[in-house]
């Protein structure tokens, strides 16, 4: 979720000379490693459009969210930026980003049909398109093939019950201190992914209220909490795992639900002797539902800001970065998975047994609720579930409390919607 890799390389972001110079540059904000890598793509773009100058400003991931909002307040937003797709609803609430429907309709480079539908959907709010997916991200299972095979699990499980059985087998064989699955208690993505797979809506009534007592969410929460209760997953926060890769290598955890950035990390950080003994698999589905289980639609999009005075040039940047050839190049440079299906015909991507499950999983992803409050709600989800995972609270009481929390968080949204409705029919 958070990549600190380039986090410490502070970009001299805001203070840079703005405009004024000859041949005004289009300002592009990109975060962390992406910001580093996108610089290498710029020369080709500038070669193709003589007169277009692009100035890339790299911002650490840890500061990105705050920076965007403070830049909005200070009227210092760039022309075009990378945007985590869960941040788009916030930026739309501020009316900071430009609708892109007309530009996409007129574009030869951006073909909506070539994108993963679940990912594309995260950029559409109330029928309007606000961003173009740049690279994609979803959660699935990373696992140690040797440990599962030793426990007698030959094919990776496809249903929740088979998944549990596999964890039990691994734990039984490994003995105390060895677990089937690592499922950090302070991350929301895993329980929410399970809930989405079980068909939970999460919010109800046009995202006016929480829907965490719904049977679908309850089913997923029950499964999630059961993994801790029955000792299949350790009740650890990710801050308690000092070195995940060491512990994966030691066999403390056989499986881990995580995202594509760990493809590179596993390759780099697991010892050479284990490089043949790990792979990935799509999420198992709840029993009785089609495999693979639905996961979360993540990743980053490219957006054009309303405040920009060079929107046409900004759009050229978006188009260039969206071309399948550029997407392939970008993947080669940093390993971020391409948003366009046609970029996945790249042989190295198409044949790699570890990326192929991502390709399949990405066809089965769903967006989290597209409201600005979502991250706050998501934090409540793990905050509330953590005591249940640690065995100190009862699930039903917690789900009721969670709905109350979420209703309180959404109170302002309800008021705004009512106000808007009242203005609509005076």
């Amino acid at each position, binding site marked *: 979720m958070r990549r600190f890799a380039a986090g410490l390389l502070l970009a001299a972001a805001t203070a840079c000379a703005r405009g004024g110079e000859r041949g005004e540059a289009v300002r592009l904000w990109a975060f962390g490693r992406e910001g580093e890598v996108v610089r290498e793509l710029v020369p080709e773009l500038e070669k193709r459009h003589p007169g277009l100058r692009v100035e890339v400003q790299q911002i650490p991931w840890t500061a990105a969210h705050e920076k965007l909002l403070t830049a909005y307040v200070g009227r210092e937003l760039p022309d075009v930026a990378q945007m985590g797709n869960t941040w788009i609803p916030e930026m739309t609430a*501020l009316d*900071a980003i430009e609708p892109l429907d007309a530009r996409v309709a007129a574009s030869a480079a951006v073909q909506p049909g070539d994108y993963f539908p679940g990912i594309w959907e995260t950029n559409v709010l109330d029928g309007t398109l606000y961003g173009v997916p740049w690279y994609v991200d979803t959660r699935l299972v990373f696992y140690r093939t040797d440990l599962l095979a030793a426990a007698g699990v030959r094919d990776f499980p496809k249903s929740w019950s088979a998944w549990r059985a596999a964890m039990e087998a691994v734990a039984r064989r490994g003995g105390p201190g060895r677990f089937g699955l690592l499922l950090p208690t302070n991350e929301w993505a895993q329980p929410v992914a399970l809930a989405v797979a079980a068909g939970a809506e999460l919010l109800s009534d046009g995202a006016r209220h929480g829907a965490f007592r719904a049977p679908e969410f309850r089913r997923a929460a029950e499964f999630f909490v059961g993994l801790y209760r029955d000792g299949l997953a350790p009740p650890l*926060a990710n801050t308690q795992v000092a070195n995940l890769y060491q512990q994966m290598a030691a066999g403390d955890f056989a499986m881990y639900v995580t995202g594509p950035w760990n493809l590179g990390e596993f390759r780099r950080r697991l010892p050479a002797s284990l490089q043949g003994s790990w792979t990935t698999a799509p999420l198992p589905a709840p029993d009785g539902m089609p495999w693979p289980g639905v996961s979360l639609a993540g990743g980053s999009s490219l957006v054009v800001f309303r405040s920009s005075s060079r929107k046409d040039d900004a759009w050229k940047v978006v188009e260039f970065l969206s071309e399948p050839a550029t997407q392939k190049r970008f993947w080669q440079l940093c390993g971020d998975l391409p948003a366009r299906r046609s970029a996945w015909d790249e042989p190295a991507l198409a044949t790699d047994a570890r990326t192929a499950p991502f390709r399949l999983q990405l066809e089965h992803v769903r967006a989290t609720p597209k409201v600005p409050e979502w991250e706050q709600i998501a934090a409540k989800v793990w905050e509330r579930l953590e005591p249940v995972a640690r065995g100190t609270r009862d699930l039903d009481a917690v789900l009721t409390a969670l709905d109350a929390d979420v209703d309180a968080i959404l109170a302002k949204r309800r008021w705004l919607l009512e106000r808007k409705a009242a203005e609509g029919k005076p």
Partner: protein
Amino acid sequence: MRRLSSWRAREARAGLLLVAPGLLLLALFLALPVVAALLLSLTDFDLYAIGDPSAARAVGLGNYARLLHDPVFWKALGNTFFFVVFGGPLTVSLSLGAALLLNHRLVRFPGLFRTIYFAPVVTTLVAVAAVWRYLYHPRFGLLNAALGFFGIGPVDWLGDPHWAMPAIVLMAAWKNFGANMIIFVAGLKAIPESLYEAARIDGAGPIQRFRKITVPLLAPTFLFVGLTTTIGYFQLFAEPYVLSGGEGGPMNATLSVALFMYKQGFRWWSIGSAASIAFVLFAVILAATLLQRRLQKGGEA
């Protein structure tokens, strides 16, 4: 008489003129933001209001009322008090102990030790936290290995909600005692050696010399160090922020009031609510400072 009073008035005017730039700066950079924040704390200013100011509603004391009913706030306040009550005295006594040791005639290379003890103060907290996370690791950590040597079972320092705050107290005390130590050393150096010599001649033992000379003469330093440490520790933020990845977990066990405020303001952009937390924290610190001053003044008299 009249001439004198007019001279006085002129002097007063000149004085006012002289302090005016300072007052102006204070008004501009302190009073104004404080008043703005106070007004903000009476509204529900949030993300929506950043985009459209008409979405901000005056809520009176609503933010404060909600805070008093928020169990997370009480948890944060409790954690902060725990940190102040245990961390403050621990840090101050560590500093005093180290200062007394360094000030002792028999200690060789006091400059070297002073530098070593002071090093944590100037080390980046993020780096310190990374190292301490290893020290605290339940299985590979040095601390648990040491405890295991004495037959004490492994403690999940950062994971167990009961131990997470003590773990932060420990790290903060280690990180911060050097700064106070320097102040204590300066205080000790200011005590004339002749007093000790006179006491020794009169037959006072080391404990008596400490109680009758060091303690009373160090009292002003003690008051200063105690106050600044208390105020600083009420604003506990960075230590739990880096050790818990910005969340204040596990189960809010390390959530301090300042971290709670930061999350409200800059994670969730509930700026009105964050401003109200700031004022509550201010009131708490003010009360604690007054109380401490009274206690220490009382102790002196």
